[in-house]
């Protein structure tokens, strides 16, 4: 078959099978779906989380997920006949809170049209039972192999650094791109600022769906606020305010790992604002508070002094190296059961 015919054949094939916008790519959609995983599952073992599971929802009326408690406003939208098709899903994903005011889906939305189309294409690959219906197999593009003559061993340049002269010098731009860590003394803090008011909006959009609007945590996601004076209680609540020794850890962690499933997507100023808002949620600053690269290291966390070095070796039960543990008749009465795991019944099914 000539190349021309092949290309024609491929485009006819593509035209037949692609009803979604041309740029939709379910494989890309699968990756992009990572940012949804904090709240949504899809697939055969999918369960409802903060959001409903998303199996087979395309081209069906909205609000059909069984046993899932929708928000009032979502229910209303569903009752008024909202149907999930490419168009409505696209609008919803672009700005969920604008499309259905009051939805639980406190997610800022996907800005890129292409990304939305890809996510929708991915969602459509799952039927109601969560089985993935294999989508179109894209024709493989075979890159021409260019064979270059192998370099002679003597043509390689040996660097001068180090002992074995291996690796190459990292360029400044490369170090800047990866070196994002912050220390309690402020080393690594980027120039910038953000206030708690701006932080509140960012937090609501990016963080509240897991951590709760007041930092109270949903399901088993970490609680961020409250818990002061609980560390000696039976059920201590270890939050940023009650436990974390340094504010730099908050900034560093949000910047490197949050939002869950969409890491490194916030600007440095966004991170300042969210950090300021978390201080506010913990009653450590008021709502007017602005956190900046200048005032950052002046803020001390309440629990800083309560961390100690590893002194496990000083624990009193430890035998000295010279004494042997008891081998015979180590107790007067026979062993009796005081607690059974089976009673608590928390062991997962081993089938």
């Amino acid at each position, binding site marked *: 078959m000539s190349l021309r015919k092949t290309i024609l054949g491929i485009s006819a094939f593509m035209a037949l099978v692609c009803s979604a916008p041309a740029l939709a790519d379910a494989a890309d959609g699968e990756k992009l779906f990572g940012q949804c995983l904090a709240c949504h599952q899809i697939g055969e073992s999918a369960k409802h989380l903060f959001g409903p599971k998303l199996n087979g929802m395309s081209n069906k009326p909205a609000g059909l997920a069984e046993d899932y408690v929708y928000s009032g406003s979502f229910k209303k939208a569903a009752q008024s006949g909202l149907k999930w098709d490419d168009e409505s899903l696209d609008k919803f994903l672009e700005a969920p809170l604008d499309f259905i005011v009051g939805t639980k889906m406190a997610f800022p939305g996907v800005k890129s049209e292409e990304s939305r189309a890809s996510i929708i294409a991915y969602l459509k690959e799952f039927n109601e039972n969560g089985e993935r219906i294999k989508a179109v197999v894209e024709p493989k593009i075979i890159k021409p192999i260019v064979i270059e003559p192998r370099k002679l061993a003597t043509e390689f340049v040996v660097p001068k650094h180090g002992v074995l002269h291996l690796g190459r010098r990292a360029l400044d731009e490369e170090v800047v791109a990866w070196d994002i*860590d912050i220390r309690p003394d402020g080393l690594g803090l980027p120039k910038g600022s953000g206030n708690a008011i701006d932080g509140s909006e960012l937090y609501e959009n990016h963080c509240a769906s897991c951590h709760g609007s007041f930092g109270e945590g949903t399901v088993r996601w970490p609680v961020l606020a409250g818990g002061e004076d609980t560390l000696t209680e039976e059920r201590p609540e270890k939050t940023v305010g009650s*436990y974390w020794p340094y504010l730099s850890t908050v900034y560093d962690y949000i910047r490197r790992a949050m939002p869950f499933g969409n890491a490194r997507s916030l600007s440095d100023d966004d991170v300042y604002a969210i950090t300021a808002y978390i201080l506010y949620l913990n009653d450590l600053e008021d709502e007017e508070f602005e956190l900046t690269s200048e005032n950052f290291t002046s803020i001390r966390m309440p629990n800083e002094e309560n961390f100690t070095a590893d002194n496990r070796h000083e624990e009193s039960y430890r035998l000295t190296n010279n004494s042997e543990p008891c081998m015979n008749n180590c107790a007067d009465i026979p062993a009796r059961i005081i607690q059974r795991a089976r009673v608590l019944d928390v062991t997962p099914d081993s089938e």
Partner: protein
Amino acid sequence: MGWISFYLPKYIVKNEYIVYIFSKGYREWVPISMKRRTLLKRGLALGGGVGASLAGSNALAAQQPETLITEIQDWNRYLGDGVDARPYGRPSQFETEAVRRNVPWLTADPKSSVNFTPLHKIDGIITPNGLCFERHHGGIAEIDPADQRLMINGLVDTPLVFTMEDLARFPRENHVYFLECAANTGMEWRGAQLNGCQFTHGMVHNVMYTGVKLKHLLAEAGLKSNAKWLLPEGADSSHMTRSVPMEKALDDCLVATHMNGEALRPEQGYPLRLVVPGWEGNMWVKWLRRIEVGDKPWHHREETSKYTDLLEDGTARRFTWVMEVKSVITNPSPQAPINHGRGQTVLTGLAWSGLGKIKRVDVSIDGGRNWKTARLDGPSLSKSVHRFYYDFNWDGSEMFLQSRAIDEFGNVQPTKTDLRAARGVNSIYHNNAIQTWHVRNDGTTENVEIA
């Protein structure tokens, strides 16, 4: 294709025969009585006595000849898979129980979660790669080794970038080390909770690593005189970081590319992970992309909010790196009860210490009243698990099984009472206490606490 149809022929059932239909019209007639097991496996309901072939393993119960022995079995007659059927070999189809399992209610999301090594289904000291427990903070990063870079920056003479090809040119070493999550057994602080050593102790595995000593990489970059700490960082979406003191880094840390002879598994950090022998698993950064050199620790999230040990007085220990001496009996255990009744019995388990070798393991069958020293078998390597056995004649009465490990420095595994008295019940991490299994007189076994 002929071979496949020969191996898996179509068949019909006709009168007293199964008729196997092979390619080219060839048929073979086999009396049903000879193929009972095959048919049972395929789910065909047939009347008639099947007792003999379903008889248990107790030799005394065999009142009539076992058809397993008196009849020719499929695998005795027919050809099996050829060499290319399994290009990467898998465990036997019958080993369905030897799998990692998780505890769904422990964490909010499987992308930031943990599962457990089936300790009761393995033997020896090496954990097979596919059974090493997983703990991810942002799912498994899938990285093409051609895209892998390792950067060293900070307090060094020359900040460097290495490719995998560069790393393959350093002198490399092989070491067997255990990796234990600091939270292993963490669910048991308040009392017996999970029924199975997989769940109570399965956040440990033991693997032979091939890798480059970290000190060689650091020497290549050249350490400044005030270089005291390292910050390894992962490339996954959690960008995992931990502060590691320089003495440890220059002592025995490895940058590993292989586990048990093959490239690291994706879930274990392919293509590159840090190995921090004897220290808590969280520090063994997977998908390692960068090592920063500094003069102070960074106090990042995984060494402040997490992996610090809250004590009863409200203070918390930090930088509790060493995984202390510990052991567990893996068989019998709740997932592996005794099915053979009284008589000769093998008790086995694992012991390890983050400080060095295991010197001795004692075993008790009466809840710690009397102890016998178990037999250590297999290689005894520093910071590796040790396998112990205790072979004895069980009289069929109930038992309270315990094991107590002692390392080469004389550190003795503590009791739960000792640990709770010293730390309270809110430490989460570093629970290395002695475990008790209750074996009933019918051989069933459960996780209990005793007085």
